[in-house]
């Protein structure tokens, strides 16, 4: 029993990567099967389809039949609420209630109004507020539900066990919690004030890490490119931005509007205030781009190796089979690398958020500031490696 528990994590990791490998095929086969009859296999389209959002959750395809989970579409158009299942669109092939999924142009993949005939796009229609539960939203819900179940059950174990040593699953979670607390929050924010930010940092770390891992599982309930979606990372970065600025003390704002050590003529608007303001916004902006780009890039590379088989096998199946061996090896490598990146990106996002909080609440102490800056330089290195890898 203990033996199984001890080796659960590495075995699961291997298992996931194996599954990633095997099942990366099935959707692609589906794409190929349904597409070869009509048009040539388009790698770019396939990849974009896989890393993008969707109104239904495609699970697999048998022959020409698509099996997918229909997700609710919620639209607010001129103050009127329209709610229906995405299956009404018939995989994007028909319109419903005067809406359709755009198939071409700039708004491809989005829901637009159609004219009376039910086919052509109504270019003059007003803005539609689209609050649909898309594939990514649904994946977020799944991720959050699993996280809550997992962590609350661990919390219950803690309350039942008391101060006894952790065991089993509890100890895996505890390692991560202690890592976030002792290696991220306390060094970045300081021993006195870290407790206020710790719940947010822990949630951030667990959400990004867990969702990254779910994103590596290529079938339901994983496979959605949640953390590789810019809207998701934007929301996360916005939280960090808001918490940083709401907690900014006098010293923090003084540094922004009246930075010390700068000639007075530069302090007169517009030069320095704009630079400082830009710096304030750049921080969360970089957080947003980094996570999004790393995760999406990893997915694109893996999908690229899959696409390679079908591009080369399209003309001559023998070549496709020959290439598949190499592709599979590279995909295993990339998936293992993505496991690492999943952790590194969660770590970097959390660490940088913590550092920003630390800067916001830091008191005026020149020598202290120097230390923090040095630390920032050192701790930036993992993130740099992460970027180099991808």
């Amino acid at each position: 029993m203990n033996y199984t528990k001890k080796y659960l994590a590495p075995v699961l990791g291997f298992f996931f990567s194996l599954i990633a490998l095997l099942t990366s095929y099935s959707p692609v086969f589906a794409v190929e099967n349904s597409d070869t009859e009509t048009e040539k296999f388009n790698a770019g389209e396939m990849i974009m389809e896989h890393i993008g959002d969707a109104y239904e959750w495609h699970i697999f395809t048998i022959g020409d039949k698509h099996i997918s989970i229909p997700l609710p579409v919620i639209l607010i158009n001129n103050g009127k609420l329209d709610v229906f299942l995405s299956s009404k669109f018939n995989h994007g092939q028909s319109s419903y209630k005067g809406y359709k999924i755009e198939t071409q142009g700039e708004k491809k993949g989005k829901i637009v109004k159609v004219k009376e005939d039910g086919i052509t796009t109504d270019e003059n229609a007003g803005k539609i507020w689209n609050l649909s539960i898309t594939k990514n939203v649904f994946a977020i819900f799944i991720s959050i539900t699993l996280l809550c179940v997992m962590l609350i059950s661990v919390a219950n174990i803690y309350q039942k066990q008391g101060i006894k040593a952790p065991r089993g699953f509890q100890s895996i979670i505890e390692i991560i919690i202690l890592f976030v607390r002792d290696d991220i929050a306390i060094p970045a924010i300081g021993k006195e004030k870290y407790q206020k930010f710790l719940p947010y940092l822990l949630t951030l770390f667990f959400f990004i890490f867990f969702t990254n891992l779910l994103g590596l599982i290529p079938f339901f309930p994983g496979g959605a490119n949640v953390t590789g979606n810019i809207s998701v990372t934007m929301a996360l970065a916005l939280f960090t931005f808001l918490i940083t600025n709401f907690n900014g003390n006098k010293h923090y704002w003084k540094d922004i509007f009246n930075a010390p050590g700068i000639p007075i003529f530069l302090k007169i608007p517009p030069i320095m205030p704009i630079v400082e303001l830009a710096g304030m916004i750049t921080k969360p902006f970089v957080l947003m781009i980094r996570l999004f780009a790393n995760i999406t890039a990893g997915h694109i590379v893996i999908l690229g190796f899959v696409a390679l088989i079908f591009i080369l096998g399209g003309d001559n199946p023998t070549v496709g089979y020959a290439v598949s061996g190499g592709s599979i090896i590279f995909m295993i490598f990339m998936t293992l690398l993505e496991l690492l990146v999943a952790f590194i990106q969660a770590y970097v996002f959390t660490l940088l958020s913590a550092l920003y909080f630390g800067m916001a609440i830091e008191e005026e102490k020149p020598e202290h500031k120097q230390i923090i800056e040095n630390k920032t330089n050192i701790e930036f290195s993992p993130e740099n490696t992460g970027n180099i890898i991808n």
Partner: protein
Amino acid sequence: MNLITPDFGLFFWMTISFLILVFILKRFAWKPILNMLQKREKSIDEAIRAAEIARQDMEKLKFNNEQLMRQAKAERDEILKEARNIRESIIDEAKIKANEEANRIIQSAKESIHYEKMAAMTELKNQLATLSIEIAEQILKEELKNSEKHNKMIKQMLEKVTFN
């Protein structure tokens, strides 16, 4: 372009879901877990400190015991030494006393022997004297039985006196 354009719907749901996640986890997961971790750390700290104190106490106790032991040993040695001294002095004293007694006894014995001897001598002398007198008496009696001899002897004696 689609890839890097934020989508309002997803952003909206993400914001709401994440807020809910933060609040649920903060209330039901992080609070109990972090509390328990802190409690555990505190108890471990206390246990370590208590162990350290106990160790120091033990050491002190051990040191005290050793000292006590050393003291006891020293005391025992002292007592033994004293006892030995006392024994020796008692023996010595006894010897001296015994010697003295012996000497005294010998002395008195010598003295009594001397007295006895003297007494015996005196008695012997006395008896000898009486015996001599008796013998002399008898001899005189025998000698003076015939007057001739008697006269002769007187004469001889007188002659001697005259010659002188």
